[in-house]
């Protein structure tokens, strides 16, 4: 865990004071709404359907148990006892009151947290792999680099008023679990032939109205140059990104318009001036930051045979949880455990204050007091002793955090949608709930196996619907809420944007349509084949035909 020193503390406290002043001036009528908007946005404060929404940064998804308790206490004292974890590893509160926000920020600052640059046209919270430091396929731990980038981008004076928001993700493993190819800037840690560490750089990825996969613009950037190169890249964007149309203002449009080769050439030309300048990283600085992410004091344990462990207990529910929610760990005798925030009857990604307190306690008891947030909107205890798994499972179950559904259809990624978000075209939570209900049977879910279902309430794509094997997008048709379905989206190394199957559906039809799509998959799949593999083999047509079939028996129109 990175801990603030006096510099970090004084900078973050100054921000609280600054925002308290700005809020005061706004409330006193000395700042207009237009003047205040970008200021509050750069502190994570939106004005939403029910009033202000506050987005709190969880840098690269890492929390201490004390920080999670702080989040729980804030949800309890300033909101309605619930927080929503987002696809960018942040937490949102939907019911805060504007005059209280400075107090919330102060409480965050006391726990070494903030809401800086979680919104607005600036460099946003840097996201990363929730299994960093523990995954077996790790080339290097991405967290120190994410922290170094966090500091560089925090209050960067040149980049506070970019054409549009700018999102950075970084992965240190061979399997990309940070969706780096759908970020404005995606960084992949790699080693070159000489064994030196550096980054492969991708730019111009993103979802939204114009979904695009990021383009590789540099094969190998030696680590020393991370900041100077990033500065060159963002400067090119700041100077030449479009500002005439907010839908064309993301860097992806610039990269596409110039072509990735020309964009890369411009970045290199700019970088030539900055390279080897004072912002060149030093081994001492990297070491200072990396030390804070040193591995915890693992016990020397023998690796358990999980099958035996599960058999020993003879409980099907435990066996299922181990199968879905427990991931291997690079240290023998340890496992990484996902606490699911996807339960029937709850909005995906939501956690009550009680659950946050419980998760913090679990982190203290089982995982060195640390916890991570995933972009799939779950929590992870990264360092659990295998022999404690059963005890952990029992306690997590008592807290409602042990749904055995990671990677299954029920583990949907869902944005807050029309219930909360003022940008929404349609609600996403009731759709998620209806689909959850339709697929409530665990045997059925397990039979279907891995299946990513993602839902966004509008083109902004916060629910990453383009990346779902099944994606659902809320669209507005003459003031009514409709849902468009895409198939075949994939996140990770082979990131791919899903394909629209055709005309959109009314809300009431969605669960049926999903069920039919799944039925097509089940009837066609070969042994061991996942949804997207079957889709690739048999094509979209059988799915389309099933989705739009008029079902005479039920007598309902399947499309509109």
């Amino acid at each position, binding site marked *: 865990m990175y801990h603030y*020193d006096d*510099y970090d503390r*004084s*900078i973050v406290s*100054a*921000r609280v004071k*600054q925002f308290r002043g*700005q809020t005061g001036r706004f409330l006193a009528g000395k*700042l207009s709404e237009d*003047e205040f908007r*970008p*200021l509050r946005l750069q502190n994570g404060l939106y004005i939403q359907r029910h009033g202000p929404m506050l987005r709190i940064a969880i840098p690269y998804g890492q929390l201490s148990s004390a920080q999670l308790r702080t989040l729980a206490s804030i949800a309890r004292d300033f909101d309605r006892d619930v927080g929503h974890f987002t696809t960018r590893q942040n937490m949102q509160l939907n019911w805060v009151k504007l005059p209280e926000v400075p107090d919330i920020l102060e409480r965050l600052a006391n726990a070494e947290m903030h809401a800086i640059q979680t919104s607005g*046209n600036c460099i946003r919270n840097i996201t990363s792999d929730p299994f960093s430091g523990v995954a077996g396929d790790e080339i290097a731990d991405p967290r120190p680099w994410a922290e170094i980038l966090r*500091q*560089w*981008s*925090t*209050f*960067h*004076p*040149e*980049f*506070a*008023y*970019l054409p549009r928001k700018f999102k950075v993700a970084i992965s240190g493993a061979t399997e990309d679990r940070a969706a780096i190819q759908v970020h404005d800037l995606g960084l992949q840690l790699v080693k070159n032939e000489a064994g030196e560490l550096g980054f492969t750089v991708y730019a111009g990825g993103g979802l939204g109205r114009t979904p695009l996969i990021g383009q590789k613009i540099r094969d190998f950037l030696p680590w020393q140059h991370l*900041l100077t190169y990033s500065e060159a890249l963002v*400067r090119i964007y*700041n*100077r030449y990104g479009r*500002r005439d149309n907010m839908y064309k203002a993301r860097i992806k449009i610039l990269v596409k318009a110039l072509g990735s080769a020309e964009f890369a050439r411009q970045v290199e030309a700019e970088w030539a*001036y900055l390279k080897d*300048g*004072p*912002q060149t*990283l*030093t081994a001492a*600085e990297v070491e*200072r930051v990396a030390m804070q992410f040193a591995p915890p004091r693992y016990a020397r344990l023998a690796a358990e045979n999980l099958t035996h462990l599960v058999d020993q207990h003879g409980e099907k529910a435990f066996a299922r949880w181990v199968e879905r929610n427990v991931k291997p760990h690079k240290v023998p005798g340890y496992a990484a455990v996902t606490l699911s925030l996807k339960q029937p009857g709850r909005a995906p990604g939501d956690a009550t204050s009680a659950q946050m307190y419980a998760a913090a306690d679990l982190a203290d008891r089982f995982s060195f007091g640390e916890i991570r947030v995933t972009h799939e909107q779950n929590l992870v205890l990264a360092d659990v002793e295998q022999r404690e798994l059963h005890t952990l499972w029992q306690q997590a179950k008592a807290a409602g955090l042990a749904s055995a559904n990671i990677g299954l259809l029920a583990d949907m990624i869902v944005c807050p949608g029309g219930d909360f978000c003022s940008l929404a075209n349609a609600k996403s939570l009731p759709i998620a709930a209806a689909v959850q209900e339709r697929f409530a049977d665990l045997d059925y879910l397990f039979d279907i196996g891995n299946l990513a279902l993602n839902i966004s309430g509008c083109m902004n794509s916060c629910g990453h619907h383009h990346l779902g094997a099944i994606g659902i997008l809320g669209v507005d048709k003459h003031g009514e809420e409709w849902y468009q379905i895409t198939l075949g989206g994939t996140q990770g190394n082979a990131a791919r944007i899903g394909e629209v199957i055709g005309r959109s559906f009314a809300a009431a039809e969605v669960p049926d349509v999903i069920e039919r799509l799944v039925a097509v998959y089940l009837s066609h799949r070969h042994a061991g084949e996942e949804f997207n593999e079957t889709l690739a083999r048999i094509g979209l047509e059988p799915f389309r035909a099933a989705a739009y079939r008029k079902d005479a028996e039920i007598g309902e129109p399947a499309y509109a």
Partner: protein
Amino acid sequence: MPEQLIQNGRLVADRWQRLEMSEDADLGALSAAPILLPASLWCARRDQLLARTGEIGVSLAPGFPLESLAEDIGRFSLIAVEFPKFADGRGYSTASLLRQRYGYRGELRAVGDVGRDQMFYLQRVGFNAFLIPEGRDAEDALQGLTDFPDTYQGAADQPLPLFRRRAV
């Protein structure tokens, strides 16, 4: 509140005459007093303006191609960077480049939609003068210069990032 000029942390009177001239204007009538011209006019009428004695400043619109002035930067004792809307942040890169790449040392003035809440960043990228528009409080704006006690990244005002200055 009328328009006010802050220069090096103080309120001062503006000694520059601002000229809104078209590119085919008659330049013969210009006095020797310091004049601030649109940079596009400088580019279009460079030879005639070079013949004139007296200080010249140029004012850069947000998309102005700074590179086209590279040769002439040393001739100006004022460069104004325009912010028609404060949310258009191109001028921050312009200022960084002027200070850090082209070595411009004269007055660098932020003009337009600027106020207290932009001051800190503007100062960091190298502005040392701020034209606070009518209706905004320049005294209040001055407060913005001290919003933060320290900074992480290098910029024109302090090229060394914190990691090269951090006392450990």
